[in-house]
Structures are given as C-alpha cells and as structure tokens.
C-alpha cells in the first residue's frame, strides 16, 4: 500500500515575459489501487502538475510538499523519483536516436530494480506485454520513439509502465490524439497493469472519452492551477454534458 500526498503545491515557470505562477496550491492524495482523473481545460496547468511531480527542471516548486510513503519526493532527482516508484507517461514522448527500445527497457529496468532482470523471464515479460499492447516484435529493435506514430508512442509508454511496475503512475493526456482502436488498446493496458500491480493512477485528460474505458474512482476538475471541484464518476458525466464553461466563468 502506497500513498502519494500532494499538499499546497505551487510551481512556476520562467517565460520571456517573466516568472509565471502555474500551480497555485494543489492538494491531492492518491493511494494504491485508486484512479484519479484530473480533468480541465487547456492551459489550466494539468501538464505542469505532471512534470512537476516527475521533476522536470523547467518548473520551479515555490511552495508545498509532495511525499511518497512519507519520503520527500521534491528532494529527489528525476531518476531517484522513478526509482522510488513514480512514473510519468508523457503526452509527447521524446525521440532518442541510436537507442533501441529493447536496450532502453532493459537499462531502465536494471536502474529501477538495482540489478539486471533475469534474462529468460525478462524476454518473456517484454514479449507478453508487447503482445498485449498489439505491438509487433520488430518494435523492440526500433529506436526509442523515432518514427513512431502517435498511437505507437502511447503504447510504448504503457509498455514501460507495465514493465517498470511503479507504485504511482501519472498519465499525461495518454488519450490525446488516439483513434478509438488505439484508445481501447491503451486503456486495456492501463487496466491490466492496475489489476496486476494495484498501482495508483493520476489520469490527466482533456476529454471524457477515455473514462468509458478506464473507470475513475475520483474525478477532479482542474482550473487555473488548482482543483476547483471533486467528485465521483458523475462529475465526469456532468462535464461531458456541460463542458468547462461553468468553471471558466468563475475563474
């Protein structure tokens, strides 16, 4: 049982126009086995929240705390956070020329576990996970994200999540830009990992569509760098019917 606890988190970013405050006091607790959907309009700071949790150097934390099972996440380097059990599935996964998927996965697994995975089970695990995500085996020999379609990039993110087995995963708009088939495959992958490992999920999304496939336990509406309203599944339904106008007007 793990708990990610975010308290009063403030983050800013340097822009040509000066320092811009983006997160303005986020409070959120995610336990193992829970799925929290973070929904909000563009520019509300959802991705900043994701990158701040992962430790992207672009964002400066100006106030607040983040702990994972009591450990201070903000004091950890980017790779230490991953080793502690955090995972960020990125909205725009980065191309890494010259590094094959299989080499990348093995290197990451070795880093996270502190020892190289046992070859036989590892090869089997990778193959099974790729099969489940309908990824052709030739994928393993391609360079990381190089020439991948949008759907391939997102499946590759979920593949990593499954193999690295984090405690808490942040999925940043994993559904954006996917057609219905790809969305279903990716969602099934997320559900499977959750069933198998019981991880906690922060599911950041702009659209309600993914919630047809992934059942959230909690829905949070994110507006102007804060959580404006929380509820259950029914809140998502209401957002689908009404949009974000109600929140934007008050913001």
């Amino acid at each position, binding site marked *: 049982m793990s708990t990610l606890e975010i308290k009063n988190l403030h983050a800013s970013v340097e822009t040509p126009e000066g320092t811009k405050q983006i997160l303005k006091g986020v409070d959120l607790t995610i336990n193992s086995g829970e799925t929290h959907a973070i929904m909000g309009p563009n520019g509300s700071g959802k*991705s900043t929240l994701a990158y701040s949790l992962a430790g992207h150097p672009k964002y400066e934390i100006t106030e607040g705390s983040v702990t994972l099972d009591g450990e201070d996440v903000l004091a950890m380097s980017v790779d230490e956070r991953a080793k502690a059990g955090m995972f960020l599935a*990125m909205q725009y996964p*980065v191309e*890494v020329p010259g590094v094959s998927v299989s080499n990348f996965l093995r*290197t990451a697994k070795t880093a*996270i576990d502190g020892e190289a995975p046992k070859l036989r089970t590892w090869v089997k695990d990778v193959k099974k996970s790729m099969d489940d995500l309908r990824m052709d085996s030739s994928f393993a020999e391609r360079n990381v994200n190089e020439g991948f379609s949008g759907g391939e990039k997102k499946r590759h993110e979920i593949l990593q999540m499954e193999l690295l087995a984090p405690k808490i995963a942040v999925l940043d708009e994993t559904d954006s830009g996917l057609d219905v088939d790809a969305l279903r495959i990716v969602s099934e992958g997320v559900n499977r990992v959750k069933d198998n490992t019981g991880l906690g999920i922060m599911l950041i999304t702009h659209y309600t569509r993914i919630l047809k496939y992934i059942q959230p336990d909690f829905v949070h509406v994110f507006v102007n760098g804060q959580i404006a309203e929380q509820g259950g599944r029914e809140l998502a339904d209401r957002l689908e019917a009404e949009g974000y106008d109600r929140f934007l007007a008050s913001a």
Partner: protein
Amino acid sequence: MTVTDHSRATADAAHTHGLGTPTPDASRADRPTSFEVDAFTVPTGREEEWRFSPTKALAPVFVDAAADGHLEWDVPELPAGVTLTEVSTADARERSVRAPGDRAAAVAAARAGGAMALTIAPNTVVDEPIQITLTGTGADVRGHLLVEAGASSEATVIIERRGTATYSEFVSVDLAENSGLNLVLLQLWDEDAVHAGEVVARLGRDSRLRGSVVTLGGKAVRLNTSAAFAGEGASVDLFGLYFADSGQHQEHQLFVDHAVPRCTSRVTYKGALAGKTARTVWIGDVLIRKEAEETDTYELNRNLVLTDGARADSVPNLEIETGEIAGAGHASATGRFDDEQMFYLRSRGISEDEARKLVVRGFFADLIQEIGVPTVEESLMKAIDLELEHVNEELAEEQA
C-alpha cells in the same frame, strides 16, 4: 515541451554541391601533389583545406627539417608472405602511389629518413589481423609508411598509435588487382599528442579496401585520406569514428576519386563531442570524373553534440562530371543530445551518466560493427566508455 527531431537537424557549416564548392580550385582534383616540400607554402589557416585547422598547434609539422625522434614499433611475428622492411627515401618515393598533397605530408616523406614498407605478397591470404603498435615517447617524429597488398591477397592490418609525439606522416596504400585489405588506423594518443597525417590509397582493378579510422586521443589530430580508383570494379568503404573532449581538435578530410567506371565507394564517419572546447571537422569530397560511368557512391557524416559549446563542422562535397552513374548521394547531420532526451531517460530511473552512455553507445554501435575485427570492436567500446567517464567527471566539475 519541445520535441526533438533529429531527422531535421542539420550541420551548421556550409553544405555545398559541386559547382557551389568554395574551393578555389576548379575541381578537388586540381590540388597540387609533390614530393618537393617547397611546392607547398606553410599553411596559415586561410587556405581552403586548412581553414578549419589549428595551424598554430600544427606548426611544428610544417617545418622542413629532420626530426630526431621516432615511434617505438611493436611488431608481431609476421605470417608467411608478409614482410616489413626499411626502404630508402628514393625508393619510398618510387613505391608511393602518388606524391603528398600537403606540406605536412611532404615534409614527412622528405625527412623521415626512408620508409617502412609492409608488404603482402600476391595470393597471400592472412586470416589473423596483423597488429602493429607505434608508441610515441614525446619527441618530434616524421614517418613514411607503405602498405602494399599484392594481387589477390587478403589481409587485415591494424596500426595503433599510442603515447605522445608531434607526428607527421605520409602513408601510401597500394592495392593490386583483386586484393582485399582491411586497414584500421587507431589514434589512441595521449592527450597532448599532435598528429598530421595523409593517407593515400590506390585501388587496382577489382580490389577492395575497407579503411577504418578511429580517433580518440591527441590534442590536434588531422587526417587527410584519399582513395583513388585505378581499375574498374573496385570498391572502397571508409569508416571513421571520433570522440572529442574539451581541448581536442579532431579533423578528418576525405577525398574519393572515381576516375574509372564501375567502382563503388561508401564513406561513413561518426563523431561525438563533449566539453566546451571540443572541436571536430569533417570534410568529405567525392569526385566522379567524366570517365567514371556506373559509379555508385554515398557518403555520410553524423555528429552527436553532448554538451554546450562543442563545435562540429561537416562539409560534404560531391562533384559529378557524368550523368551515367548508378548512384551518388551524401548526408550530413549534427544532432544534440538535449535536455528533453536526458529528462525522458532519467524519468525512467536511468542516471545522467548512464543516459549519456546509452545514447553514445547506441550512436556508435553499428559503426563499430563495421570495423570487422572483433578484438578492435571490443576494445573500442571500452575506450568509448572511458571517454564517457572522463566527460562525466568534467561535467560534474562544471556543475560543482
């Protein structure tokens, strides 16, 4: 967030095609060659072929005087059919495939006091690589070397340079009809070595040259490699790998001269740069003469810049004088290993040092496999890991 697309990265230097070349000569082939040192003025850095070169660091190799030092030769027991002999200066001139093409090489040939000739007798097939190690002991050295592959011979020759020296050399590589030579030149100098070399190869009919150059060490290394086809049906593959740290200048110039029909050339050079003052230069000239119908050529240079401040110049030139060719192309790209790639790898638990290692090993892996000598391939991967450790230390110091 920015998405890095290396396929769109381009070299920051000039990228010229044929007529657009900045060479003052009408053609690359018009550059003078001579055994007379005075045929070449002392380079100032303003000349086309020296404009990227550290002429100040290279100054000692332009001086027309004998040098008192020598490299220590470590030569294994040579297999039957292979000999290493001393040759007089006059004979060495006679047996060289052509005269030197720049002042450093002309001085080397004139003042080396004769040449060493590695000769593979016709029809000799040597399975095991012949590895010769030359170690500098800090002195000024001139060298003239002949590598002669007899008709229908097959051999792999590795020449490794270590230690330190201020070294100029002229290397003539002669491939007789239907011979096959895998020649590997390793520049694993200590960090204060200066090395200016010209390697000129002539390929007889149906011969096959695989020439690999690896430059990791030295303060200033400038290698100028030419391959000229003298008979039809020959092929040349030129591979190069270099890794420059702060304070290193590594320059590789290439010229492939397609003077006869139906020959194939491939040039593949890759370099990594790390450290504020790391500097690399790659200039690849290919000339397809009017007679060289059905030529097939492709040259590629890729550079990976690992840190701010490092500079890679990459200049491919293709001159084509006939339309009757099978294929001709070139590609040059200089990419950065940027902060977003680093963040992505680190967000998967991979440390900064490991991330750099993963990327650099990946960058060089396919090239190293092309060298075709397993022992060299293994030791190279180790040497690259050592380079990376050095880079990591340097970066840690900068951050501290």
